[in-house]
């Protein structure tokens, strides 16, 4: 046994090593990404690990591994589970022989997400177990147990940590790492693995017949527990249980659910011992609905009567507020304080030297009256540059653009999409737009890496998750294979060529693709690329503000003149924008 101070995702990765896991796949997404980052970077791996191109691909790979009898982990963020929902729903029918754990990390408050959906709903939808950790230690223990539970029940298990588990830290008791000795072998069984109607009707019945056993086994795991202390009770789940424990007084009973679906009889017995119960959980009222179904005449407080919010994340102070609103007295009072008003915000921003900035700048110049559907990645920050009009989900820039064209929108449509997002779910939209003759421009922001989530390799990178060389996919060839007649690759640091390319496609019919290709400035720096810094000549700077408006964090205003700080990475784009020619490479004359 060893105790270490770990990030939640590091503890989860360690739990997988203790199981031990045989097969790992996933698609990066905050807050889930570090699990595979840890597992793919360890030396002497006894298991297979990959970053897949999207979550559906990842889950189908992992499901096949579990069909072959090995233990498989598949990781994604909550919205990734939408992409993987198709195999998920039917994987509950086919079941598994090796343990299959699907980690779907939820993001209450949408710290880094486009919505706040609740993965527990998918588990209920698919009728498979869901484990919802309250602490990092529990997350570690649960993921280990999830593999054996999945094998025992023959069902995939959804493991649902939230941001405050994945990206919080704590002291964690770890077990020994085991070597994977399993080797996958597929045993042909069409009645299980070929879900034609005649088979699937029987499989569905079998899934339903498993449910009582599922509830019983989940109850025995020990993640659902209760303490009776008074006539009032708080019923809670997930990280909210940790917040409740900080503010619950000694005379209020406590019931925590970490494993869904909950045993309804056990829950009803507990509720009957009380006069009032308050349900506290983040996001959807999954536990609350079950409580209300079995509560009889016991008063239930929660989201459905307006005491607790459906949205956002909770905290000890928020829990104390909810308690007070329904007559429970929290053990701790929180001061009513507010931040200092009117401070200038410091939002996340595209890095100094980021290749996306000149592309957005040029698009705005060339297509002044254009519409700019965009996508999910660092470049969504192009919103700050006025060059992002829509973002809905992965891959939806091209499809939203073609939809607008066919709806009758006559202005120029310029969709922007990153390399990883294009490979994730952008290709289908491109093929569709070409085949149905949309007139639009697609700019692929190709920085050769999945940057926003922490620089995971993708098929344009030329390396696998574990760092093995692989032949990079040619985006030009993919676009041409989709039927695109005009594909041009440009260096976004070369403003003249970039601008000319954009002007050129304006006059062309059909779908045009420009691939703006340049390494992510962070990976370039890590690879040792040094371009030298630039500086402003204060003698000739006219203070026109053009370089300031470019929005690079390396450019500051010093009195009325511009100056360049130490963040400069030497992309030289500002030097090309400066009408007075005042920005030059350091040391150059």
């Amino acid at each position, binding site marked *: 046994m060893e*105790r270490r*101070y770990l990030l939640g995702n590091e503890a989860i990765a360690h739990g997988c090593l203790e199981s031990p896991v045989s097969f790992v796949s996933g698609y990066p997404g905050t807050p889930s990404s570090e699990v595979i980052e840890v597992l793919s970077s360890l030396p002497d791996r006894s298991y297979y690990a990959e970053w897949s191109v999207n979550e559906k691909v990842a889950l189908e790979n992992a499901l096949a591994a579990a069909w072959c009898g090995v233990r498989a982990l598949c990781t994604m963020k909550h919205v990734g589970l939408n992409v993987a929902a198709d195999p998920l729903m039917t994987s509950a029918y086919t079941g598994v022989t090796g343990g299959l754990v699907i980690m779907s990390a939820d993001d209450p408050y949408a*710290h880094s997400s486009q919505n706040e959906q609740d993965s527990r709903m998918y588990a209920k939808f698919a009728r498979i177990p869901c484990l919802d950790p309250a602490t990092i230690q529990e997350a570690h223990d649960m993921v280990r147990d999830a593999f054996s539970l999945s094998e025992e029940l023959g069902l995939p298990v959804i493991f649902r940590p939230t941001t405050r588990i994945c990206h919080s830290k704590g*002291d964690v008791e770890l077990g020994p790492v085991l070597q994977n000795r399993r080797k996958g072998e597929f045993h042909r069984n069409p009645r299980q693995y070929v879900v034609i109607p005649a088979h699937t009707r029987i499989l569905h019945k079998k899934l339903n017949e498993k449910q009582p056993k599922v509830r019983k086994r989940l109850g025995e795991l020990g993640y659902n527990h209760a303490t009776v202390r008074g006539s009032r009770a708080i019923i809670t789940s997930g990280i909210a249980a*940790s917040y409740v424990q900080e503010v619950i007084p000694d005379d209020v009973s406590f019931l925590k659910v970490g494993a869904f679906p909950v045993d309804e009889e056990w829950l009803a017995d507990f509720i009957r011992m009380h006069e009032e119960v308050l349900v506290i959980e983040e996001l959807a009222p999954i536990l609350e609905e079950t409580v209300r179904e079995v509560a009889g005449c016991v008063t239930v407080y929660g989201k459905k009567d307006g005491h607790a919010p459906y949205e956002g994340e909770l905290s*000890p102070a928020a829990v104390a507020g909810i308690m007070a609103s329904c007559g429970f007295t929290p053990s701790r009072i929180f001061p009513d304080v507010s931040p200092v008003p009117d401070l*200038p915000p410091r939002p996340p*921003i*595209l890095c100094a030297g980021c290749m996306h900035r000149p592309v957005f700048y040029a698009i705005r110049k060339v297509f002044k009256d254009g519409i700019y559907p965009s996508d999910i990645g660092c470049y969504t920050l192009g919103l700050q540059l006025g060059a992002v009009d829509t973002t809905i989900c992965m891959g939806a820039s091209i499809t939203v653009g073609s939809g607008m064209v066919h709806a009758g929108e006559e202005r120029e449509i310029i969709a922007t999409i990153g390399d990883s997002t294009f490979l994730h779910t952008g290709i289908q939209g491109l093929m569709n737009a070409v085949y149905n003759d949309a007139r639009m421009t697609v700019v692929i922001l190709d920085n050769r890496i999945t940057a926003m989530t922490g620089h995971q390799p993708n098929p344009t990178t030329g390396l696998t998750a574990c760092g093995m060389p692989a032949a990079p996919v040619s985006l030009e060839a993919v676009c041409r294979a989709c039927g695109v007649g005009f594909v041009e690759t440009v260096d976004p640091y070369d403003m003249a060529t970039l601008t000319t390319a954009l002007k050129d496609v304006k006059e062309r019919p059909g779908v045009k693709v420009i691939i703006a290709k340049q390494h992510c400035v962070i990976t370039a720096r890590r690879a040792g690329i040094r371009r030298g810094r630039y500086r402003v000549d204060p003698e000739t700077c006219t203070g026109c503000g053009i370089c300031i*408006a470019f929005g690079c964090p390396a450019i500051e205003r010093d009195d009325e003149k511009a100056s360049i700080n130490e963040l400069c990475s030497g992309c030289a784009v500002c030097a090309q924008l400066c009408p007075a020619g005042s920005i030059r490479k350091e040391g150059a004359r």
Partner: protein
Amino acid sequence: MTGGYDIMIVGIGGQGTILASNILGEACLIEKRSVRGAETHGMAQRGGSVESHIRVDGRHGPLIAPGTADLLIGFDMLEALRYSHFLKDGGRLVVNRRMVIPTSVYVQKLPIPSEEEIISQLAGKDLCLIDADATAREAGSPLSVNVVMLGAASHHIPLAADSLLLAIKRLVPPNTVVINTKAFELGRAAGQTC
């Protein structure tokens, strides 16, 4: 009450707040104490405002509530002011005397408080200002600002200086142990004087 000691470290993505919080967590392990922490990852890191919560002797959740932190360590003056409401009455504030102006100020021509205005807005707090950039250069690397700040704040942290030093040795890159040890000691000396 939690009975623990709650520390916030605030700054700008890339300033080393995560390493600083890891050092505190490791020092808790060295002293066999429980610890909880929370930090900013993902999109929020790209040069934006970041916060780390570290709860020495924490047993439950990782989040520190506004108005309850025992100590706030600010790597940047504007960020220290932004998060100053997290401090409890009588809480300690240790701040690097330096301010990176947000790009939004230049692009959108927003007003920004001066150093003097920030200091006067923090006047009611138990404030210790440290010239950590100069101290870090003196220690041998401008990158050691985070360790200088830990050293400066260490007088108030209920962890032994030896535990913090051992944690630093375990966590910083091996070729920077000498610099970071010096950074901690110089920071600790600077923190003594305010």
